[in-house]
């Protein structure tokens, strides 16, 4: 299984390097943000699986022609009291590398899930203690603070939070549009979409592709929530709300701290004012590509190819 291993390894490299950069820079993503998100998720999952699969297959290659066969052979050897299945040090090292890589990716993800859940729970607890319910939407909490801010604290019992400053700045239609946007984040659990990208940015800080994937995903999630909100409000009302809150946020940004994901407010406003044409073709192609790469990375280690 050397040849499929090398193919998988190349797939991983292509997905992480050129493909991720291409997708991060692609202009069509503003037309079909939801399909782009799915493609990012597919790309992330497929590149991880492909990298792991390649290393594991190279390591196990002396034991069989598929990962399943090799693992079976190893189990039989362990049953006979031979823990290493007579693998030489290089192959053993490759297998250990795959195990370490896998545990690191999964471990970081689990830790990040626990840590975010704890921080959010605490935040929600304080919001519930000090905030007052918004009279026009009881699932929203108002904080008495002059800064104009709207945000959501996601989770099983998520909260949408507005400040008194935001209520002062926006009229009721604009407030409703903002609430629709935030409720879209909560009901579609966008936090779960973003979470693995954040976790793996922390796990692989030297991989710039992971970082740019993270900021692209955060930007796309905002567009998806904008689109969802627009089912319940006028596009230019949401655009006005965004522009007002954005202008009000000026000054809170220290010089040089402008993150890429946050630089997108203006793009979002323009996108709402002049909506780009949707493209069913791109959409279908993105879904197909995502499914294909995940299927390839997932199945290749388990099937014997006549190579």
């Amino acid at each position, binding site marked *: 299984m050397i040849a499929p291993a090398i193919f998988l390894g190349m797939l991983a490299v292509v997905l992480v390097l050129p493909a991720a950069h291409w997708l991060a820079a692609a202009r069509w993503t503003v037309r079909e943000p939801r399909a782009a998100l799915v493609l990012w998720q597919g790309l992330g999952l497929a590149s991880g699986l492909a990298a792991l699969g390649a290393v594991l297959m190279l390591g196990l290659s002396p034991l069989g022609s598929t990962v399943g066969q090799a693992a079976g052979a190893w189990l039989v050897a362990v049953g006979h009291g031979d823990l290493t299945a007579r693998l030489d040090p290089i192959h053993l090292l490759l297998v250990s590398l795959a195990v370490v890589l896998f545990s690191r990716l999964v471990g970081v993800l689990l830790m*990040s899930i626990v840590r*975010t859940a704890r*921080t959010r729970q605490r*935040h929600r*607890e*304080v*919001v*519930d*203690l*000090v905030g007052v319910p918004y009279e026009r939407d009881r699932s929203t909490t108002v*904080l*008495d*603070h002059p800064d104009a*801010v*709207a*945000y*959501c*604290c*996601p989770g099983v019992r998520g909260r949408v*939070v507005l400040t008194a400053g935001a209520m002062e700045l926006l*009229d009721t*239609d604009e407030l409703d549009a*903002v609430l629709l946007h*935030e409720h879209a*984040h909560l009901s579609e659990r966008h*936090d779960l979409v*973003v*979470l693995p990208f*954040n*976790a793996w*940015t*922390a796990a692989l800080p030297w991989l710039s592709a992971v970082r740019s994937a*993270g900021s692209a995903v*955060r930007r796309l999630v905002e567009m998806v929530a904008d689109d969802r909100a627009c089912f319940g409000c*006028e596009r*230019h*009302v949401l*655009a*006005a709300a*965004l*522009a*007002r809150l*954005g*202008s009000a*946020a*000026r000054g*809170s*940004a220290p010089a040089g*701290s*402008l*993150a890429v*994901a*946050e*630089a997108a*407010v*203006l793009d979002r*406003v*323009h996108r*709402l*004012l002049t909506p780009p044409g949707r493209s069913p073709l791109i959409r279908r192609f993105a879904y197909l590509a995502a499914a294909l790469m995940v299927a390839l990375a997932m199945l290749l280690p388990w099937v014997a190819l006549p190579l």
Partner: protein
Amino acid sequence: MLRLGELERAVMDVLWSAPGPVTARVVSDALSDRSLALTTVLTVLSRLEAKGYVSRMRDGRAHHYAATATREEHVAGLMHEVLDTAGESSDDRSAVLARFVGQVSREEAEALQTALAEALRRRPGGREVPTE
């Protein structure tokens, strides 16, 4: 019967409006319109103490309770968590809370004003653009 969360809010409201540390009896008297048993108030107070929102001090034979932070301090803490994206843990923060709009630069704010004027032109009856 009130939900536990609302009871906690009510008890914190009493502590925040009290001039200093108070006994559980004072809290329960302040909430007399809800006709809570003293033991209920004590339970809520000890829950709040376990979560770190309330501190308990002994004064002779009676326990006195006080909020560990004012309401304003709590709100300021929340806003700090939401707005502080420039800190070291920026990735963690953005993972925890999704803000409607992030921080913007001066140039972007000016461009946003232009865009706002455009949005309002298309929407009769909208509020005027704030002038500075």
